[in-house]
């Protein structure tokens, strides 16, 4: 049942959820940003519950998409996994090794294996460093001296991401947004990572460039067998890139499933609403697709609703939803690994579009 962990092999064969030790395992992950107020003595008056009890697993070479509205905690999750932020609660373990509260020195061996690609290619590259020194710096920090020298490795990486190796000595301001993002990708690849957290890597780019960058990431993933946590709010991009997709709402995962299951058989009302909002080109005589319009705004993460967090905007909400938070479980009629956090999941196998 449990497939052997094959890191080098391409991840074309979809890895199952039940592999012995997943590459990354996150359970009950919580991040509350405290709010201080009061006069004259400032004290904690509340907390933004950016991420509240998140569970997910990423297998070797697997690509997990993380989608949701703005402010639902996607980016915070990414930053918690790369340990740019200190979790308030829960555990993060990488290859069975707890890194939840590891210090910078303790993290050192893991650092090279978890890398990140950032959203804004204009602020993620130091304007005062050449491309060469930007890509080289992860090797310097970790004291890695590859065969043939660091400069050779940088040139290889530049070639790998589709840039001219001769541009080694150029500065970031001489590149376009798409090229800059490629530099960011090259930097993330410098240390031969096993997991890359891509925090909306294409949302700052032109649509024509988005496809190029996503395809580049796709190729790299297949060639190098790197697992991805791909954070995006563009459902189409995630569908293209990720085998498993998790939908987040207000700091929690409401549904997680394999790509086909999630997009064709969404069980959570929020997922359905989200998918129905994707604009689609249809012929004039095609039956009009049902468009679910959610009323109201996302509640404040400072005081999220009791029970199910989606209940304030859900057309199915009952008293049960207010009283109990639904656990993320396999709903009836779902395939293995399709988990939904809803008391009243949508009926299975209902085509989303007409």
């Amino acid at each position, binding site marked *: 049942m449990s497939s052997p962990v094959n890191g080098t092999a391409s991840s074309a064969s979809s890895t199952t959820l039940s592999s012995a030790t997943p590459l990354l395992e996150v359970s009950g992950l919580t991040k509350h940003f405290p709010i201080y107020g009061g006069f004259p003595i400032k004290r904690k008056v509340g907390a933004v519950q950016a991420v509240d009890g998140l569970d997910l697993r990423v297998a070797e070479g697997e690509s997990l998409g993380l989608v949701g509205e703005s402010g639902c905690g996607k980016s915070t999750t990414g*930053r918690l996994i*790369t340990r*740019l932020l200190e979790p308030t609660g829960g555990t993060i373990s990488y290859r069975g090794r707890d890194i939840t509260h590891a210090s*910078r020195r303790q*993290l*050192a061996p893991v*650092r*090279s294996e*978890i*890398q*990140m690609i*950032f*959203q*804004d290619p204009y*602020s*993620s*590259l*130091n*304007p*005062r*460093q*050449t491309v060469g020194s930007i890509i080289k*710096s*992860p090797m310097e*920090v*970790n004291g890695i001296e590859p065969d043939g020298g660091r400069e050779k490795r940088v040139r290889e990486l530049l070639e790998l991401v589709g840039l001219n190796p*001769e*541009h080694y*000595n*150029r*500065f970031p*301001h*001489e590149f376009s947004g798409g090229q800059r993002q490629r530099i*960011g990708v090259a*930097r993330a690849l*410098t*240390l031969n990572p096993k997991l890359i957290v891509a925090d909306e890597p294409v949302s700052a780019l032109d649509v024509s460039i988005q496809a190029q960058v996503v395809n580049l990431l796709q190729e790299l993933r297949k060639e190098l067998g790197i697992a991805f946590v791909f954070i995006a709010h563009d459902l189409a991009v995630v569908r293209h890139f990720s085998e498993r997709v998790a939908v987040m709402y207000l700091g929690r995962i409401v549904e997680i499933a394999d790509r086909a299951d999630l997009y064709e058989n969404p069980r959570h009302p929020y997922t359905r609403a989200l998918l129905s909002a994707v604009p689609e080109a249809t012929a004039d005589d095609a039956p009009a697709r049902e468009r679910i319009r959610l009323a109201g705004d996302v509640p404040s993460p400072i005081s999220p609703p009791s029970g199910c967090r989606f209940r304030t905007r859900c057309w199915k909400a009952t008293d049960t939803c207010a009283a109990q938070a639904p656990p993320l479980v396999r709903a009836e009629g779902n395939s293995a690994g399709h988990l939904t956090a809803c008391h009243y999941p949508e009926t299975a196998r209902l085509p989303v579009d007409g």
Partner: protein
Amino acid sequence: MTSPMPSTAPLPAVAEIGAVPPAPSAPSRSGSSRSPGRLAWLRFKRDRTGVISAGVVIFFFVIAIGAPLIAKLYGKNPYTTYASSRPELLNAFSYPAGPKGGMSSEFWFGIEPQLGRDVFTFLLYGIRTSLGIATAATLLTTVLGVVIGVVAGYLGGRTDYFVGRVIDILLSFPSTLFFIAFMPVVYGVFVAPNDNIPTGLRATALILVLSAFGWAAMARLLRGQVLGLREREFVDAAKVTGASPRRIVFKELLPNLWTPIIIQSTLLLPTFVTTEAGLAFLGVGIIDPTPDWGVMIQRGAQFYTQDITFMLFPGLSMVIFVLAFNLLGDSVRDALDPKSKR
């Protein structure tokens, strides 16, 4: 980036004559990969005011450094009272006997009233003393300001709050009054009240006091810059690779701070020159007989109703220097930061 491209088009024809294939690619590469510093230098070179004032400033520094050499070639020194051996240099009222403050081929800038020292060498050595103190104070202030400002900005939280209040207090002091009040205290720490204060100690104390009250503006400026920079994603990118805070500060943040540091310190130096001269004028800084810009102006102020030339030389030279340095500072700022148009 587009300009080198057309130049490669007629290349095949030219290549046979040139016979060096890699040559055409070399200039196009170096031309297109101009560092921000190189671009700033090109902008600076186009700024005529900046280039002229840079020339003036360099001239002052050269004569300050070369003062002993110039004095040797000139054959005089600033300490000898030439009038005591040659009383004919001064008239009955102890003012220079010759016209225009005693200017002659022997004493180029004339001689000092009463004591009869040589004005030219006295001015040279005065510039040397003043610039030395101002430069040292600027360097120390810059180092202090950069370290405190960057640390406060990067660490944030309590450290930032505490440093911020210290800066507030320092900036709210009337600094000149404070210098006057503090200089004797500092001297008192090192020297017994009745002893003579050695000139070296006076200079050191001046540098220390000027720096102690001067770093606040620099620190505040850099703190603000760092607050903006540390939220940029390239800092996160460095953290993800496991970079130490030290590396982040020195390799990631500091290169982005050179612009404000250079601008602030070029504006700082002329204010230190004037402050130092002001303190000497008031008698709490460098004192006679040590040559100094401020000392000269103070001496000149005693005689200017009768002998304006003695006041003129230090006064004019200082105005020229401070003006040139301020204009240089402006030009440097414009060159480094093309967006900040006045």
